[in-house]
């Protein structure tokens, strides 16, 4: 299925006769043709497929876990309860507090959607993290942005904007400096930094893996240099393991920062 949605495999870089490394253009490793609806708003390409899988996988796991949920958890129920506990104890409670439990479904969804989307970076035949494209990160960052502003307005009314832009305790003359900075950092840079952090990390990891893949293939077909190919292959394996960790870490960071922003809007004094 992934192969059908992928570009032609043109990653083999060595020219006939041994002409050195030719790295594929960036658009060939991040841009994917649509299976249908090309050029329309519903164009369904590889990234869209990964996004749908990133939704379906947690749905299936949670349905299995909840179907025969027992007081003494076993198997998949145990795993999913651990994930719920993780998000609750590491994200919701430290960043928002007990009244943040109402945001648990959103943060759980965010975490699983990002994590599984990221994992496709190292899943054979896919090798493309959904978040190495800007679409999902910017969409999720907009969700976080709307959420924390919405929470702030819901709980504090328009005073939320006043407190955010004119922090109490600051000398009035400094508002000339502080207010624009607060406006930029809170309402513009936050969603942008959220999106770019996730996107850039995953894109960098993807390019790194592609680089070492191309290098390894090239070196293995380059006579005596095949010895160096072993080293390159070792690095490829090591970076794959590293990206496995990054996939989890970025999902955790995105969820945590979203929770921190919501917590800040809910309890501005803190």
């Amino acid at each position: 299925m992934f192969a059908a949605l992928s570009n032609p495999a043109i990653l083999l870089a060595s020219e006939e006769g041994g002409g050195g490394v030719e790295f594929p253009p960036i658009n060939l490793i991040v841009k994917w043709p649509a299976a249908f609806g090309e050029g329309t708003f519903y164009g369904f390409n590889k990234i869209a497929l990964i996004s749908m899988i990133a939704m379906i996988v947690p749905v299936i796991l949670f349905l299995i876990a909840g179907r025969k949920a027992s007081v003494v958890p076993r198997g998949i129920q145990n795993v999913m309860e651990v994930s719920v506990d993780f998000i609750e104890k590491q994200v919701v409670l430290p960043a928002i507090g007990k009244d943040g439990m109402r945001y648990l479904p959103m943060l759980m969804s965010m975490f699983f959607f990002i994590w599984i989307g990221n994992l496709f970076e190292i899943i054979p035949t896919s090798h493309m993290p959904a978040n190495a494209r800007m679409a999902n990160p910017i969409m999720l960052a907009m969700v976080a942005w709307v959420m924390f502003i919405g929470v702030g307005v819901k709980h504090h009314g328009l005073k939320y904007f006043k407190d955010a832009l004119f922090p109490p305790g600051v000398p009035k003359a400094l508002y000339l400096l502080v207010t624009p900075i607060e406006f930029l950092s809170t309402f513009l840079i936050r969603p942008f930094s959220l999106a770019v952090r996730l996107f850039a990390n995953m894109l960098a990891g993807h390019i790194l893996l592609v680089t070492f893949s191309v290098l390894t293939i090239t070196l293995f077909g380059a006579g005596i240099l095949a010895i160096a190919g072993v080293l390159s292959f070792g690095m490829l394996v090591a970076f794959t393991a590293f990206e496995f960790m990054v996939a989890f870490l970025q999902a955790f960071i995105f969820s945590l920062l979203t929770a921190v922003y919501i917590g800040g809007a809910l309890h501005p004094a803190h």
Partner: protein
Amino acid sequence: MFLASLAALATEVAESDPTDINPVVPDEIGEIFWGAIAFFGLWILMRYVLLPPLLKIRADRRNQEISDLQAASAADEAAEQVRRDYDVTLAEANSEANDIIAEARAAAEHERGEIVVAADSEIASERQAAMAELDSQRSSAVSELGDDVADLAVAAASKVMDASLDEPIHRSTAANYVEDAR
């Protein structure tokens, strides 16, 4: 100035090769569309379908833990009460046993004293009877022996003096002697 820069940038982008993409700009609206559908679908399902069973079972487990802990605490308290009751009962039993032993010992001591007194009394009476019997036997023996000795002495004296002696006189002499010798 700023608008002019933006216009120049837009012109540059429009004239650039369409295969040269800027990866920071989301250029495929379909990816955002399907991503949003997937994420919001997951969020809605998570909120209303996926999480509630696990949160409910977790709450049930927590309630059961609390009730089990309370039951364990109550059982522990009951066990402690039983242990205290047992200690009290044991102490009472020990005290009662000591009383019984003391009473039995006193009764045995008393009975032993009575038996000893009775035995002493019986021994004394038997001894007295035996002594009386002994005295009687001895008197009888001495009396018989006195007669025999007198006869023997008279006979012996007669032999020595080779003459008949006045038996009644000498018998009384011998009897007196025996009586003195006793």
